[in-house]
């Protein structure tokens, strides 16, 4: 299963609930405002850092770039993907669960 989160963890609880209900081993892709969760050194960074043992975590590059972040700003171990990578993840993981 591929989970996507498109809300900032500073604004909504979408990421919290995703992490609570996502089965171990499922993949999580952060998109749109969700990319903010992948930035290191914030008051929310611990959530993704703590989830990396149970999930592969991805972040969408174009959404980072639009918000003036580069791959260097991202928590170590989080993989940056482009739109083609997004498609690959969707194909690879089957059922998609969008946390809105």
């Amino acid at each position, binding site marked *: 299963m591929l989970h996507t989160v498109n809300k900032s963890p500073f604004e909504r609880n979408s990421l919290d*609930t995703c992490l*609570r209900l*996502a*089965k171990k081993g499922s993949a999580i892709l952060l998109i749109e405002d969700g990319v903010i969760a992948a930035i290191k050194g914030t008051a929310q960074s611990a959530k993704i850092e703590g989830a990396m043992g149970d999930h592969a975590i991805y972040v969408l590059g174009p959404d980072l770039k639009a918000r003036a972040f580069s791959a260097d700003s991202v928590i170590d171990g989080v993989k940056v993907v482009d739109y083609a990578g997004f498609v690959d993840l969707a194909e690879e993981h089957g059922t998609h669960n969008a946390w809105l």
Partner: protein
Amino acid sequence: MAEFEFETEGVKKTFTFMNRKAPYGTIYALEVLETVLISAAFEQHANIIFVDDGVYQIKAGQDTTAINMKNFSPTYGIIEMEKEDADEDDDIDMVWRIIVEKESLDARGLTEDDFKVSVEVLSAAEIADIVDASDCVISG
């Protein structure tokens, strides 16, 4: 206008409907409800799950008259009746579950007695397994 025929004979999937928003403030709750009703028309299996503020969608005693909006919570009463019919009738191959997450209930000081329909109260871990085993997740 073209006519479409849907070949649904023998097609049986399990849909999970993940309700996470309170009713009336946004359109999410009503839109998910519409898709639940569509899946009923096609006799598909459904897990109707209420998590986070979604639990407020089925709270008993909603009265929307003063906000000029349709109270759609009675529709969940009809869904419960359909579910019970399907459970009792061997000719209807349709398993529906109405599930509420325990963690979301506890966080809001609610119990299953607060709801207008009978629900299964399950933990986050139990819900994770159910969602993982479904063919399609529709969330709002």
